[in-house]
C-alpha cells in the first residue's frame, strides 16, 4: 500500500520565542520524529486553516524536535502567530534536497542572509559549526531592515564571539543607539571581502529582491554560477512534485530544490519574482 504523503503527523508547540514584532520561532515536537537534513523543508499545518512550507532553523542533529522561524505575512502565518504554547499543529516532510554539505568541505563557506532568510541558514550554520574543522572558514553576512528586525539576537551575540565563525551584520536603517553597519546587504559583499573565491561556496537566502542583488554582486566578485547556492521561494502546495505549483523551468522547487546552484536555474525567466 502506498503511503499517504498528504497526511501530517501531529505535533505540539512546546515553546515560542518572539524574535521581532513580525517574526516568531516555534519549537515543534512531532509525535513521531521528523528528522531533516539542513536546507530541507517541512509543511506545517494549522488545523482547519491550511499549511505552508518552512525550513527548520534548528540543528538537524536534534531529531525529536525542531525549531521553525516564521514571519507573519498572510493567512496561515498570521494564524500561527496567534497560537500559544501547547497548541497542536501538523508536520509533514522533510522535503527537498537540502544543502550539499559535502560540496562545502575544505572550502571557505560564505553565508549571505536577509531578514527571515536567516532561518534556514541558522540550521546550516549550526550544522557547519558542529564539524567546523571540515571547512576552511565559515563566514556569515546578515542584513535586516532595522536593528529590531534582526532575528536570533542572543545567538548573534554568541556567534560574534565564536572563533570558528566570522560574522558581519548590517541594517538598512537604524536609530542612534545602533553602533553597527548601516547599508544594504550588498555593502557587506565588498571587493576586499578577503575570500579565496576560487575555493569558496556562497549560500544565499532572503527575500527575492535581496537574493537577486546579492547574487549579481557575488557574480561580480568573481563567484562561478555553480558555486552559488540559492534558496528559491515558490508557491507550494503538495511539497512532493505533484501539484505543479512550484515549477522553475524543468524543475520543481519542492523536489529538485528549494536550493539550486545558480547555473542550474539562471537561464529560466522570472526566477527572482
Amino acid at each position, binding site marked *: 500500500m502506498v503511503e499517504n504523503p498528504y497526511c501530517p503527523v*501531529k505535533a505540539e508547540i512546546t515553546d515560542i520565542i518572539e524574535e521581532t514584532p513580525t517574526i516568531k520561532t516555534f519549537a515543534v515536537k512531532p509525535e513521531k520524529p521528523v528528522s531533516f537534513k539542513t536546507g530541507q523543508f517541512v509543511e506545517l499545518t494549522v488545523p482547519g*486553516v491550511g499549511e505552508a512550507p518552512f525550513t527548520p532553523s534548528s540543528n538537524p542533529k536534534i531529531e525529536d524536535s525542531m525549531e521553525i522561524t516564521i514571519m507573519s505575512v498572510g493567512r496561515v502565518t498570521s494564524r500561527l502567530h496567534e497560537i500559544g504554547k501547547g497548541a497542536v499543529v501538523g508536520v509533514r516532510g522533510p522535503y527537498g534536497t537540502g544543502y550539499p554539505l559535502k560540496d562545502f568541505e575544505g572550502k571557505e563557506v560564505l553565508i549571505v542572509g536577509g531578514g527571515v532568510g536567516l532561518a534556514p541558514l541558522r540550521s546550516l550554520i549550526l550544522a557547519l559549526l558542529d564539524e567546523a574543522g571540515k571547512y576552511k572558514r565559515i563566514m556569515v553576512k546578515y542584513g535586516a531592515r532595522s536593528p529590531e528586525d534582526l532575528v536570533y539576537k542572543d545567538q548573534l551575540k554568541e556567534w560574534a564571539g565564536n572563533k570558528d565563525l566570522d560574522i558581519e551584520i548590517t541594517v538598512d536603517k537604524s536609530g542612534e543607539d545602533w553602533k553597527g553597519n548601516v547599508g544594504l546587504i550588498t555593502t557587506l559583499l565588498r571587493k576586499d571581502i578577503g575570500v579565496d573565491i576560487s575555493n569558496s561556496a556562497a549560500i544565499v537566502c532572503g527575500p527575492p529582491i535581496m537574493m537577486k542583488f546579492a547574487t549579481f554582486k557575488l557574480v561580480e566578485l568573481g563567484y562561478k554560477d555553480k558555486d552559488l547556492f540559492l534558496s528559491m521561494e515558490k508557491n507550494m502546495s503538495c511539497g512532493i512534485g505533484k501539484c505543479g505549483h512550484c515549477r522553475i523551468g524543468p524543475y520543481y522547487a519542492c523536489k529538485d530544490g528549494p536550493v539550486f546552484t545558480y547555473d542550474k536555474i539562471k537561464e529560466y525567466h522570472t526566477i527572482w519574482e
Partner: protein
Amino acid sequence: MFAYGISKEYSLYYLRKGKGASPHIVKYSDGLKDPLIGGVRPFEPLKNFFFFARERVIDGLGRPADPKAGGKPLCVLGVKNCDLAGLNILDSVFSEGDFKDPFYVSKREQNLIIAADCTHAIDTCFCHALGHEHFPQKNHDVLISELRDGYLLESVTWKGKKLLNENSDILADSGEKHIEERDHIRSISGAQVEEGIKKSEIPRQTEYKDVIKKSLESEIWEREAENCVECGGCNVACPTCHCFYLADIQKKAGGETRYKIWDSCMYKRFARVAGNANPRQHLWERLRNRFEKKFDYFPEVNGLYACTGCGRCISGCPAKIDIRRVLKDLVAEKKKAKA
C-alpha cells in the same frame, strides 16, 4: 447483458450521444440508454475517474483518508485514445517518483477501462499531430471495435481477459474478416482526423522542439490572452492537466479534513507567494506558462508532450483560444527567426 455483468462488480459509466458534437459520460443503471461505443471522445476527460475534481485526502492530523473508500471501483466503457494517452502524463506525475499518490494509484489498479476505436472524428480532433492514433494504443484493459453488425473485443490485460472469460457465453470467435472490417473503419476515421489537421494547419509534433523557449517574448501570448476570462475551463477539460491544491476545511462537527482540489494555472493566485509577489502577474504570462508546461516541461522531464490532441480546450474556451492556431503561429515564428 455484458454491461449488466460489469455493473455487478464495477460502477459502470458509458458514453451517450449528446446534443452537441461530443457524447457525454453517464452512469449505468438498468441498462444502457443510447450508448455509444465507437463515435468520438466524450465531452468529459477520462482523468475525472482517476484524479477526482475534489477528493478528501485526510480525516485529521495523523489520519490518512482511505484511498479505497467510495464503494465499487469504476469502469468506463468507450474510452478513446486521446484520453488513454493522457494517462501517460498522469501516471508519470502521480505513480512515479519518491512519493506516490495513493488515491490515483489505487484507482489505476482497480478501475477497468474498456477502450474503443473512434469511428469518426470531429472538427477539433488533431491527435495524429501529436503522434497519437485514433484507436486505443495502451493503458486500457479491453479494446472494443464497433463493426457494422456487432463488436470486436480484445483483452489487453489480465483484468480484461477475466472479463471476456466471464462473458464467453455471449461472445463468438472472431475471424480475419472482422479485423479487416475494423481496419477499414479505422482508415475512414483516420482520414477525417487528417482532414481536420490539414484544415487547421496545425504542424506536427516533430516541429515543436523549443517553440516556446524561442518565443518567450512573442506577441502571440498577449494577442491570445486578450479575450481570456480566466475561467480555467481549458485546464478542467484537459486529460493531462494535473495541477491541484490542498485545502484544509474545519468541519462544523469538529475536526478538520484536507481536500485535494483541481487547480488552474490560469488563475492569478496559482503562483503567487507571500507578500503578493507573483512571477506570473500578467494573464499572458499564465497563458504562456500553460504552453510551457505542456510543450517544454514535460518533453524535458519525460519526453512526452502533455497534449494529446483531444481538442477539448478548443471547443470549451469562451474566448475561442485555439491551441492549434497558437502552435501554428509559434512554429511559423520559429521558422522565420531561423531564416
